[in-house]
């Protein structure tokens, strides 16, 4: 039975007042390597069927993997029964209707597989050879996933989204493992990945690191490239739920009640937005929610998503909303979207030009192990890794020791002194969960390096 047939049959079987069915078909292939050799690999397929039944104001959700046709009636019956037993749900709303069916609804699923690496794997092998002869060791991970989501509802929705997600993470180390550099790219199909060029860039950074400069903890003028900016902005985006803000428990809560929407956060006219149709980072154009929570509502399934500014010209514009939280907050319905784009005022200088214009500062290529310390200010802690460089008089003069930082991305927005042009990037820390990001390099005049880390 195809996923489309599973959705139709499940909707027929439901005896609840309303029903939403989500069918996910996922296929994935990966290669992992360390020290110029393969470590693990794999291909996998999986399927999941989620039935959301509505009885009055009650809702029941049952999600099962690898459902066989003969099991379908039991899964639907379990969801229907859970809905009838449930107390009224706070977020209960009319199910979404009136959204035109996806043109691709009836098309079959074409899974990905190990052959997506047919061209890439030999190129990686050549990169291993080049690295070996250049005194480098390569470590990393290549993964390609295709997820097809089918959403059908008793209100007539028939929506489909096919999401290819690919990434290569490449880490080069000197043979004594004392110098390290990382780069990563997001890709939809690996046809655009130039592993030799990426390795070449890492080789240059390892050369920079041949000169070592030890610096103490303190506040430094710091340049952050797009991957590091993405890690900070994504955490802030994840923390921008309207309900937590309304309940007075987030950095976006206004003292005394309400939210900080409308408040100027950044002195520079930066814009942080999401757009399901953004070129190169396109993502699902409708809401898919497999459970309700602080920032999701199963009743919103199928709700169309459109370009949303979270911060516009430095001013907080929107928070992550469900229809329910939008009513509570009196703000527009702005659900979360699976990409994030930050742009500066335009005409900004490239990272290379920013380096060239720096009298003395740090170039921090990667942030790592980022965790929240204080939700009130969104103070985050984390480490630098795989390349902190000292810039003096416009040139990289050597590699610096690593640091632990303590910084709030919200506070940091207010202290930005320069924003470069934006480009697609792979977040170093959050790349497992969030690969679709377009970010600029930024300059911060006083980034807080709290202590020195001995890690190299």
């Amino acid at each position, binding site marked *: 039975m195809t996923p489309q047939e599973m959705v139709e049959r499940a909707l027929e079987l439901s005896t609840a007042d309303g029903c939403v069915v989500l069918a996910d078909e996922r296929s994935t292939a990966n290669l992992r390597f360390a020290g110029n050799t393969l470590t693990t690999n794999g291909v996998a397929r*999986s399927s999941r069927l989620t039935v959301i039944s509505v009885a009055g104001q009650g809702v029941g959700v049952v999600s099962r993997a690898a459902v066989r046709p003969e099991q379908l009636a039991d899964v639907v019956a379990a969801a229907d029964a859970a809905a009838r037993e449930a107390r009224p749900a706070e977020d209960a709303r009319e199910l979404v209707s009136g959204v035109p069916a996806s043109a691709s609804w009836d098309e079959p699923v074409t899974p990905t597989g190990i052959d997506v690496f047919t061209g890439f794997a030999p190129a990686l092998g050549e990169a291993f050879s080049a690295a070996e002869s250049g005194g480098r060791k390569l470590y990393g991970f290549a993964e390609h996933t295709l997820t097809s989501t089918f959403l059908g509802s008793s209100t007539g929705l028939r929506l489909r989204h096919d999401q290819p997600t690919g990434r290569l993470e490449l880490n080069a180390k000197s043979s004594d493992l004392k110098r390290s550099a990382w780069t990563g790219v997001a890709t939809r199909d690996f046809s655009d990945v130039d592993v030799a060029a990426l390795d070449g860039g890492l080789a240059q950074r390892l050369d920079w690191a041949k000169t070592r400069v030890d610096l103490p903890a303190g506040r430094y003028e710091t340049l952050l490239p797009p991957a590091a900016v993405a890690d900070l902005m994504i955490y802030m985006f994840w923390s921008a739920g309207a309900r937590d803000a309304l309940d007075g428990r987030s950095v976006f809560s206004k003292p005394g009640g309400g939210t900080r929407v409308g408040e100027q956060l950044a002195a520079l006219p930066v814009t942080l937005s999401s757009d399901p149709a953004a070129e190169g980072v396109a993502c699902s154009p409708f809401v898919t929610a497999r459970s309700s929570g602080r920032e999701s509502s199963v009743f919103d399934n199928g709700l169309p998503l459109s370009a949303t500014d979270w911060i516009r010209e430095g001013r907080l514009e929107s928070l992550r909303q469900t229809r329910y939280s939008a009513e509570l907050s009196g703000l527009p319905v702005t659900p979360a979207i699976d990409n994030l784009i930050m742009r500066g005022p335009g005409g900004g200088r490239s990272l290379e030009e920013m380096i060239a214009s720096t009298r003395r500062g740090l170039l921090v290529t990667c942030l*790592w192990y980022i965790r929240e*310390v204080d939700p009130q200010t969104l103070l985050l*802690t984390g480490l630098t890794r795989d390349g902190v460089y000292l810039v003096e008089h416009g040139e990289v003069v050597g590699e610096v020791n690593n640091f632990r930082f303590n910084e709030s991305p919200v506070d940091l927005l207010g202290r930005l002194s320069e924003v470069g042009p934006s480009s697609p990037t792979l977040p170093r820390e959050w790349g497992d969960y969030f690969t679709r990001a377009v970010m600029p390099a930024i300059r911060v005049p006083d980034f807080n390096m709290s202590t020195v880390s001995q*890690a190299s």
Partner: protein
Amino acid sequence: MRQIDSDFLALPLRRLADAALQRARDLGAEHTDFRLERVRAETLSLYDARLEGAADADDLGYAVRVVKGGTWGFAAGIDLTPESAARVAEQAVRVAEVSAPINREPVELAPEPVHADVTWVSSYEIDPFEVPRGEKVALLADWSAGLLKGADHVSARLLQVKEQKFYADTAGTTTTQQRVRIHPHLNAMKASQSGFDDMSTIAPPVGRGYEYLTGEWWDWQGELAALPQLLEEKLAAPSVEAGDYDLVIDPSNLWLTIHESIGHATELDRALGYEAAYAGTSFATFDQIGELVYGSPLMNVTGDRTAEHGLATIGYDDEGVRAQSFDIVRDGILVGYQLDRRMARLKGFGRSNGCAFADSPGHTPIQRMANVSLQPAPGGPDTDALIAGVERGLFIVGDKSWSIDMQRYNFQFTGQRAYRISHGKLAGQVRDFAYQATTTDFWQSMEAVGGPQTYVLGGAFNCGKGQPGQVAPVSHGCPSALFRNVRILNTVQEGGK
């Protein structure tokens, strides 16, 4: 003693395994293992005593892993027919063939005795999936309502997992296992003129059933009754003065420090560089085994997958290796690592100590953490006696924020609450604290270790590692312990305020 669920045993476990193992053998694989898993998870989330979300999901599928020509090949499928299992075996062989050109380190596995047709079930009484959802929600709502009398908002969450695994390999081992784990967690939040703060329960996640919520295993009533007042005191508490302090750390906080600074640091795959591009490596490099002074002579750390109710406890690992207990740090010296079969062979250990785990049928087994625990001092002091030995210090309870670098040197932790210690006595809470240290400095500063009466098994459901990312449940037992001269930060000052 619970039995493995009959509906899992009714799946065509052996027929699928036979088909896959035979096909891979026919295609020339030197080693093949087959693993079929069903993992069911239910999460109930309440906010202000109302059900906010309920997720009931399972994962079902199987994996075939081969070694062909010295190269791994892994494939996973979901169709429960022998024909499909054979096709998945073919895919695994194909993956090995495509990967061969980039493999420069032939895979060999450490030998393991054959465990033919063995079963294992974890120690629990009440299967949480047999308890009606309404009953569970009502209990959480009741607990939340009690907390709401002293808080502005209360969130409650109950995570429940049942994991069933069938494993077979070409050497003849066949294991069938089932385990249950549960984690109730409540958080109370309150605002005041000085801002807002929150406090969570410190009851650990455990390898028990629903009896954990209703029986005598944890003093829920006592903890929930005390929480609002503790939160009130925290809101009114002064901000900590940054500086060096002696710390007495409660097991509810220390387990996480053990996890990050010992558990991960003594994973051999990290020490060998397999995780270098992602989770990182370890300062505890392999050449230092038997020599590295990890901590004070009072420090004795074991790894085990056998502790009753431990989250990493199992009968046999995901490579068919029987669960064991082993030393990691003895009298302060690094003496062991956590292993899988490949690394055990590579580094001459003779046998794996059984730390291979995959979190789902779609993922390949990698070396994951055993229950890594700090041993109490026989006849050692209780927590009050440790506090009595401190002139100026802090007593830290409950875990909260954590972060550590990619070689496990530099860490920073906060907690649910901290009390000032003055002249051997607690002198009220302080706010805005974090402790920051280098791993070996910290453990070498451990001056006293509590006795068995202070020992608690803490842990987490969601330790992340590997690419593709996998999560693993793991417990860490520890007593209270005393550390001298640890750096305390004021987090408000760190934020530049």
